[in-house]
């Protein structure tokens, strides 16, 4: 099993002919993800060549694409000025999962889009996220697939490369993953830590979860409380940003300490109070996962 994406995933790529979209569509098809179509307004009727000469039909609109391909998921690679419109179109099209890679979507637009997605019962992952990979099944987004292998660890993270760092260490130690999810570094994201924890809760193959947080907001704190109340699967944590100064945005739009709230110390303490062991260094995640699995 796995969460969010698997062999049933029928994926569309919004912005398939763009620089990022075309590169990663090739990568996703190479990994075996079932990319059933792409959307670029004005290029409907053409085909995109995926891995090994696979011909992927391009559509002008999401509506046509979903009608013709019975897609159930989409990934958005379009530039920030058009990403909000692409997400709205995706939500309106009938797919159940919208993975938004784009960084720099205005927060006020995301506020309306998240409300729209909730109205329609559509899940958004991101924006400003690396996507999700279920090793051996499907990859949606930009997570390098060379660093993952199937196994019992679920990974949830707000960042991209830090996740890769954690995952490659797990993989090298022989600890494969059910699914690795990057939930995104923006202040308003569609799928929270708790949402992912709930999904992992019903995934019988996931035996331990790694939760990688960072400064800013209270998503980690709420997740920690949820873990202690609702989850039997053990969780190992890591928080980035111990050395970040307050009031400054650390790259991610959401990574900012406001007043005394959202510090790494607060989050670490909250993890520990709720039974989540916290790694001091990324490399220590491996040891904690191993110890947990050995128990």
């Amino acid at each position, binding site marked *: 099993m796995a969460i969010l994406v698997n062999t049933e995933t029928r994926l569309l790529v919004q912005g398939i002919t763009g*620089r*990022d979209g075309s590169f990663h569509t090739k990568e996703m098809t190479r990994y075996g993800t079932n990319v059933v179509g792409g959307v670029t307004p004005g290029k409907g009727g053409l085909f995109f060549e995926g891995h090994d000469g696979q011909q992927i039909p391009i559509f002008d609109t999401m509506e046509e694409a979903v009608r013709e391909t019975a897609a159930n998921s989409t990934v958005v690679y379009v530039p*920030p*000025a058009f990403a909000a419109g692409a997400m709205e179109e995706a939500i309106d099209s009938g797919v159940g999962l919208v993975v938004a890679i784009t*960084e*720099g*979507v*205005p*927060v*006020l637009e*995301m*506020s*309306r889009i*998240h*409300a729209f997605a909730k*109205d329609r019962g559509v899940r958004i992952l991101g924006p400003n996220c*690396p996507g999700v990979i279920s090793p051996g099944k499907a990859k949606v987004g*930009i*997570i*390098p697939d060379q*660093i993952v292998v199937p196994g019992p660890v679920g990974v949830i*993270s*707000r*960042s*991209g*490369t*830090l*996740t*890769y*760092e954690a995952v*490659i260490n797990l993989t090298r130690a022989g600890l494969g993953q059910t699914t690795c999810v990057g939930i995104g*570094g923006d*202040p*308003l994201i569609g799928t929270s830590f708790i949402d992912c924890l709930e999904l992992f809760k019903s995934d019988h193959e996931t035996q331990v979860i790694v939760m*990688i947080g*960072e*400064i800013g*907001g*209270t*998503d980690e704190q709420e997740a920690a409380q949820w873990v202690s109340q609702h989850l039997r699967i053990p969780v190992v944590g*890591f928080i*980035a*940003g*111990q*050395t*970040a*100064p307050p009031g*400054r*945005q*650390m*790259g*991610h*739009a*959401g*990574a900012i300490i406001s*007043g005394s709230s959202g510090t790494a110390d607060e989050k670490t303490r909250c993890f520990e109070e709720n039974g989540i062991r916290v790694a*001091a*260094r*990324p*490399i220590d995640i491996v040891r904690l996962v191993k110890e947990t699995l050995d128990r």
Partner: protein
Amino acid sequence: MDIHEYQAKEILRENGIPVPPGEIAKNSDQAVAIAKNYEFTVVVKAQVHSGGRGKAGGVKLAKTQDDVRKAADDILGMFISGHKVNEVLVTPAEDIDTEAYLGILIDRETQSPVIVVCAEGGIDIEEVAVNNPNSIHKLSIDPRYGLFRHQAYGLARILYQEKDLVKQAVSIIEQLYQAFISSGASMVEINPLISTPTGDVKAIDAKMSIDDSELFKHPKLQSYRDVQAEPRAETMAREAGLSYVKLDGNVGCCVNGAGLAMATMDLVKYYGGDPANFLDIGGSSNPQKVVAALKIITSDPNVEVILFNIFGGITRCDDVAKGIVDALKEIEIKSPIIIRLTGTNEAEGLEILSSAGLSAFTSMDDVVEQAVSETTK
């Protein structure tokens, strides 16, 4: 992007909110000339992106032209929380009956704009939040509907009892919400919102931040950016498309990805070092970005060692390696460069480095430990 008080007031004014007049002076002659247009007493206020201006001596009352000149001379050029004051706002002083707080920000939990009001204004709202949290009222606004009239009325009644003040506050709350949305703001606050003995409600001080991602829609707001007030390295970083935050240490960090960059800083600390900066070269790096990053890092005189921690994904290791080699040709770098390079096109990257006589680690812990060991502490 933070904007100055006078710029925020300009936006409030455009949205119909009563704001006292005022103009900007860059020297004391200008300040005196402006003050002549108003009845004394006037206020001379430092324009910097920082709170606590009053306590720092950046806000002064002036009853005469001489007072104005002296105040402007005192304030211009001073530093407040590390920000140099280049401009002062000269504005008439107001008679104050009551002071309140009114702000709007984006709440992560409800994923919506939240309006915050407090009948105690004029003081740091963070302090009120600690000392008297029950006096702060928050109302989440459903982005699908916007602000309803009855919501504005309910908030206004928290601030005032008197019917006419309530009515003015209802308009101001609606106008502030309009200003917030139409400017693509991430935060706006009026503190204090005053009522005067003659029964007028006015915005006496204002703060506003614009969501950087909205700026492309608002050319006018882009021009509000105060490059002079910004450290030169941050201007360079922004123009090169990099995220950079200066810190006080001596290990210059160059990382791809914000989370990994923070984790790298933390690991420097773990191994007993002190990071000189946060720097994220972003996802789709090209060699030129790496060159720019090295220029920025080396512009900090505290830097004793430069640490690269690159995990290739979208970022290709060969691009980064090429950037490092190019930079070494363009600029003179005295500090040792300690590199970790792994992931996409790792082999190609290592090849480029070794051709230039450089080498790289593959483990994050190794590279950080090595970099820290190069510093004098």
